[in-house]
């Protein structure tokens, strides 16, 4: 793989479409354990990105990531705005020298995103947050690169890990965010942020594989 800014923006459009279609479901997840606005937050953020698609396309990978980060941070608000914002700003730093996104650049970008979210959110894996989708994905990505799988296999493993990770949040207790004020710490409910994060990764992989 070897993605340009234009490719990445196509992916952004694809994930935004996907979000548009799953409003009731994601809202119901956040209404069950949080305040119900996660879908509105994330959907409005990506719509905003689609609006500025032309501008984004014209930027270098790093500048595009930075612009995405700043845009999400101010358009989304709440917890996920600042977390996605921090993640993309960190990705911009990681991609400083990259002209395109290769599989190795992707690894650096996702690792940077993961670290930024964990640091900003002060969370560990298994605490019922979006980390529980991206953390296993990054692990799968790193291991399968090291193990020498081919790109398609690597991407599928990464995607599967993200989806499984999101599903696993159902049994977890929340330590951060609104769900931790629930008497049952949200046990029995999926974490909305983990689900939308897993969609990000799944759609990204689908985009590359069907390109």
């Amino acid at each position, binding site marked *: 793989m070897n993605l340009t800014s234009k490719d990445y923006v196509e992916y952004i459009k694809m994930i935004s479409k996907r979000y548009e279609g799953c409003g009731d479901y994601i809202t119901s997840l956040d209404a069950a354990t949080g*305040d119900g606005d996660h879908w509105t937050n994330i959907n409005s953020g990506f719509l905003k990105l689609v609006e500025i698609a032309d501008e984004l396309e014209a930027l270098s990978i790093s500048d595009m990531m930075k612009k995405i980060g700043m845009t999400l941070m101010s358009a989304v*608000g709440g917890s996920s705005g*600042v977390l996605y914002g921090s993640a993309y700003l960190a990705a911009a730093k990681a991609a400083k020298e990259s002209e395109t996104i290769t599989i190795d650049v992707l690894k650096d970008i996702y690792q940077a995103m993961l670290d930024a979210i964990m640091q900003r959110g002060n969370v560990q894996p298994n605490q019922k947050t979006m980390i529980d989708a991206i953390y296993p994905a990054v692990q799968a990505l790193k291991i399968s690169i090291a193990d020498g799988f081919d790109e398609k296999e690597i991407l599928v493993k990464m995607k599967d890990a993200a989806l499984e990770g999101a599903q696993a949040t159902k049994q977890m207790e929340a330590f951060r965010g609104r769900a931790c004020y629930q008497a049952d710490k949200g046990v029995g409910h999926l974490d909305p942020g983990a689900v939308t994060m897993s969609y990000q990764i799944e759609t990204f992989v689908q985009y590359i594989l069907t390109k």
Partner: protein
Amino acid sequence: MKKIMNQPENIIDEMLKGIAKANKDVIYCEGKGVIARREKSDKVGIISGGGSGHEPAHAGYVGKGMLDAAVCGNVFSSPDPERILEGIRQADSGKGVLMIIKNYSGDYMNFTMALDIAELEDRKANYVIVKDDVAVEDSTFSTGRRGIAGTVFVHKIAGAKAQAGASLTEVKETAEKAVQYIRSMGVALSSCIIPAVGKPGFVLNENEMEIGMGIHGEPGVGKSELKTSTEIAEILVSRILEDFEKSTSMEEAEVALMINGLGATPLMELYVLNNDVQEYLENKKIKVYKTFVGNYMTALEMSGCSVTLLKLDDELKECLDAPCNAPNFKV
């Protein structure tokens, strides 16, 4: 969900315009969700903020002797770092800015992100985190306690300290002390509806109440049958005192008391509760130095109340008594 409003998506912007039109001492930084004092003064700046829906918190506390700016997000949604940065800029006279944050991870993340950016602009900023709700177990591991009505006392204390000319470090120190000395707890008689969700966070029967709920429509630690005011006073105050005793003696203590309405509860009921709370405290030989009864930190149209105690020493008393010109906390 019946509201006096126009387009729901404009409600916060129109509210902030309405606030600025009601109070000539503040300006509204449009598009930034910031209400700031018009007069800039040569002292440590104090800002606070968070999701909207808690009015008069936080914009009603902007004024001489209290906040220099309030940063307002959407309903129950933390404002983004850019907005908070604007609040910092508005409040900064070069002596630095103290941010008063309620302990929600969304607020914490957005405020500290803004702080990181402010530092890149060579601004001095620091923060305190208010976590006064004793309904939730405190914890260093998870987010722990929520910040609720006690936050208003921290605004007042920090505001007075800054007004008196203290440095950022000193203001933070005094605000931290106030945070250590504040405990709150509440009960709800009905929930509230977050416009985005469209249904209440919990549902109560005609004879039920929710104990220890937060101020965003999230459920509390448990339901019970509706109790009398005397019983409610005992439930809330005994829990608060117990929690104080874990870290500080309340024997012969002097306190400031806040009986806070959550939005839809008539003042009549808050005064009845005040009568019971004060009797309870008198029996415990705790002296009430000053009492505040009213809607200070609300949750949209929720009905119910919270009780807050701030244990006082001489410095905190002085800060509490200092003049203040904020529309909703005039001294």
